[in-house]
């Protein structure tokens, strides 16, 4: 009898003790850290990278860490797509466009102390090409890499590739990795892939500290950074970066409001208006180059008839898409390529609904109405579902019955890449974002006739020999002005041929506290921050 009572008393006391201890220890935990509090920037991201290996990583989630731990030969400047030096101090391009020579910055060291030199550049790229995963396709133009001397490295291309510098400035596959870290951690000639999965050894302003899987990645300031740490009136430089993986937008919102986060990347669109009204919180909203569009199956009647396609173009209510579906967090596209990319044609028309014109075009087409068409979008893309419903209502006005189907991307792909082109839906919604800042990354895979599925994403089977020729020529043209003229011409032709309905570019929305200073958004480094230039002023 007594034993049970004793036991109960024991457990009761233990519980009380644990609760008490937790409160006391919890309280103690805070003040001890005030002795030398590092200036910390805490960012919430819904997505966790799969891996940290610069050679294989090809997903938005890894962008933030890669941008500041690794450095590239060249980078995009500030908020633009202009190329500026990073680890290369200057470069020359041979007149035939086949040889790129980079003169490297001197006195740079990797985080493990290894000196940075031409061999390291050669080593990094050869490792990435040997592993041949993720971003490797972007570098298929490279024939060989030569370390001419310690500070000079040469890239020899197989054929001229005018987008080579923009490719080198992108985040994927371009970071220079410490050769010592790779060779000393290679197991079974795996190029240190197992080790680099959760380690990073670069030259950047921040060093990798730890990755607690599912929870966070911590980086710390590289005090030996070659760029130094200039004083700024804006506030203190950031000593420590914590990127927390918080999937639930409501959780991000609460922790941001409470001040446990400095930056939240995934506040729900429905909450943005309310959150941005709160004192001390700032909404940064910038255009992205993420385009959403609908492609016509141009091989199949009645969409092989240009008048029908054009009638659909004028029937669509673009304004409602931006205002009511995207709630203003998007801008309408201007032609088939994203606004803001070098080579984008700024003189193209931006369309708005004109039902009268649409009806006239339908009549001129000679096609008997009513006609039945199928619209297909990828499951889970809610905005594309709503666009489909709007389009359905709009097309009813010109005698077209639209049926809407949703499929997983694999099934869409199976239908667009089928041998029998009548399998391909009449209208397919899709989206695209550029890997690097060149309009070529938009136009070539989606509008060159050699890129019909399964080769690539010309899912409407568009083909115009003149466009093909312009795109091929531009690829080999090293003079930017001449190249852009070709691209602009190609975009005009694509719009004239009514190959697609170009819908909208979403905006990036990031919420942050006003004590975070100096953030500059770059439209290519969409999910990354210029942490080196950023300051905290509390």
């Amino acid at each position, binding site marked *: *009898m007594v034993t*049970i*009572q004793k036991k109960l008393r024991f*457990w009761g006391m233990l*519980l009380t003790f*644990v609760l008490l*201890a*937790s*409160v*006391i*220890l*919890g*309280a*103690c*935990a805070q003040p*001890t850290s005030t002795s030398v509090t*590092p200036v*910390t920037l*805490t960012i919430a991201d819904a997505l*966790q990278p*799969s*891996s940290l290996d610069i050679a*294989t990583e*090809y*997903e938005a989630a890894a962008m933030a860490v890669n941008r500041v731990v690794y450095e590239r030969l060249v980078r995009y400047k500030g908020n633009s797509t202009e190329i500026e030096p990073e680890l290369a101090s200057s470069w020359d391009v041979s007149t035939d466009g086949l040889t790129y020579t980079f003169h490297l910055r001197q006195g740079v060291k990797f985080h493990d102390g290894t000196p940075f030199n031409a061999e390291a550049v050669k080593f990094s790229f050869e490792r990435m090409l040997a592993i*041949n*995963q*993720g971003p*490797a*396709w972007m570098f298929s133009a490279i024939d060989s890499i030569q370390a001419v001397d310690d500070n000079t490295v040469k890239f020899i291309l197989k054929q001229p590739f005018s987008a080579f510098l923009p490719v080198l400035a992108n985040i994927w596959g371009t970071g220079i990795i410490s050769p010592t870290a790779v060779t000393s951690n290679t197991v079974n000639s795996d190029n240190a892939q*197992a080790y680099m*999965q959760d380690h990073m050894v670069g030259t950047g302003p921040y060093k990798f500290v730890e990755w*607690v*899987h*599912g*929870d*966070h990645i*911590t980086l710390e300031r590289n005090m030996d950074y070659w760029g130094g740490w200039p004083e700024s009136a804006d506030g203190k430089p950031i000593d*420590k970066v*914590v990127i*927390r*993986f*918080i*999937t*639930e937008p*409501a*959780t991000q919102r*609460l*922790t941001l409001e*409470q001040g*446990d986060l400095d930056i939240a990347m995934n506040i729900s669109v429905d909450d943005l208006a309310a959150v941005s009204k709160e004192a001390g919180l700032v909404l940064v909203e910038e255009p992205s180059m993420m385009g959403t569009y609908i492609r016509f199956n141009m091989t199949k009647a009645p969409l092989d008839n240009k008048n029908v396609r054009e009638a659909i173009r004028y029937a669509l209510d673009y304004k409602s898409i931006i205002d009511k579906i995207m709630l203003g967090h998007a801008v309408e596209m201007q032609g088939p390529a994203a606004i803001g990319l070098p080579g984008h044609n700024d003189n193209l028309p931006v369309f708005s609904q004109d039902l009268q014109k649409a009806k006239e075009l339908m009549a001129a087409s000679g096609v008997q109405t009513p006609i039945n068409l199928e619209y297909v979008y990828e499951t889970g893309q809610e905005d594309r579902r709503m666009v489909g419903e709007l389009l359905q209502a709009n097309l009813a006005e010109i005698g077209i019955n639209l049926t809407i189907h949703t499929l*997983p*991307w*694999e*099934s869409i*792909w199976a239908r667009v890449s089928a041998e029998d082109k009548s399998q391909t839906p009449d209208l397919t919604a899709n989206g695209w974002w550029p*890997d690097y800042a060149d309009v070529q990354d938009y136009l070539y895979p989606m509008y060159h006739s050699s890129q019909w599925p*399964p*080769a*690539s994403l010309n899912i409407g089977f568009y083909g115009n020999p003149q466009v093909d020729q312009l795109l091929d020529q531009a690829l080999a043209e090293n003079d930017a002005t001449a190249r852009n003229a070709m691209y602009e011409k190609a975009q005009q032709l694509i719009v004239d041929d009514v190959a697609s309905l170009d819908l909208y570019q979403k905006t990036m929305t990031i919420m942050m506290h006003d004590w975070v200073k100096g953030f500059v958004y770059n439209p290519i480094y969409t999910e990354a921050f210029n942490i080196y230039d950023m300051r905290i002023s509390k």
Partner: protein
Amino acid sequence: MLNQLLRRILLSLIALIGITLLVFILSHVVPGDPARLAAGPQAREAQVESVRKEYGLDKPLPQQYLIYMSDLFQGNLGKSLQSRRPVSEDLVDYFPATLELTLAATLLAVIGGIAFGILSAVHKNEWIDHLTRVISLGGVSIPVFWLGLVLVLIFYRALGWLPFGGRLDPSLSPPVHITGLYILDSLLTANWQTLGSSIAYLILPAVTLAFSSLGVVSRMTRASLLDTLQEDYIRTARGKGLQERLVLMRHALKNALIPVTTIVGLQFGGLLGGAFLVEVIFSWPGLGTYAMKAIMFLDYNGIIGVTLLTGLVFMIVNLLVDLTYLTIDPRIRAQ
């Protein structure tokens, strides 16, 4: 008894193999191409092919299953498509978080549930009984997601008493990985700072998770205790002049807890599943977070790994419950 135990273990193993087959078939009939998902939306055909080869996804389905099973019997759970490392390593990283949360919630549910149950039974139909019944009913019927957010709004946002989001203050490094349970590892390494922080971070999610089971345990204890209090031997005990407290604690409770033990075993399984939802709200880096990503990526090995482990834990816990009967109930021991 030993025979029975061995039979139970054997049956459990067969059930586990059944689970692998079921999950394998279910996850493969879902339309989708995991190789393409893993290679990324802009990957070229050749790269998708190479991923497919690397993970053996190009082989016929029965052959894939046989390969998986033969690897499994050698203790190899395969490589995860989403994290690109062995599933076993992922489970070692993520499972302890879920286990810690589930254990804490079970402890709260059992202690709180039994205490409420006793109070209710003793003060049957008094206000305290009504109150605990309302709380229990609430526990069973309130959605975890809603309860979690409300608790967060009160104790984190409004009062600022408890931290929220994750397992540990992000400025601290986790304790040395011994068991992966932060509280235990902090104690073992005498790291008081991480101990305090990990307990503080555990309170809200554990209470949220425990709430529904607390209701069930408390209802069960109440009903079972009331039944037992009607028994003849209780009347005898009272008749011989024992104090009511002793009658309750020594004579009634011990017998009343036998059905409660069964419920606790089953509840543990429920809590393990419920933890997945709680993890999302509290950004708790456990198996739920991992499983969600595995499902999104159609990461077959990841999905089967999670299911197998959860099944295994559930079976072990229920075996333990059976063993507990032996200690609680001499009648079973005698059989």
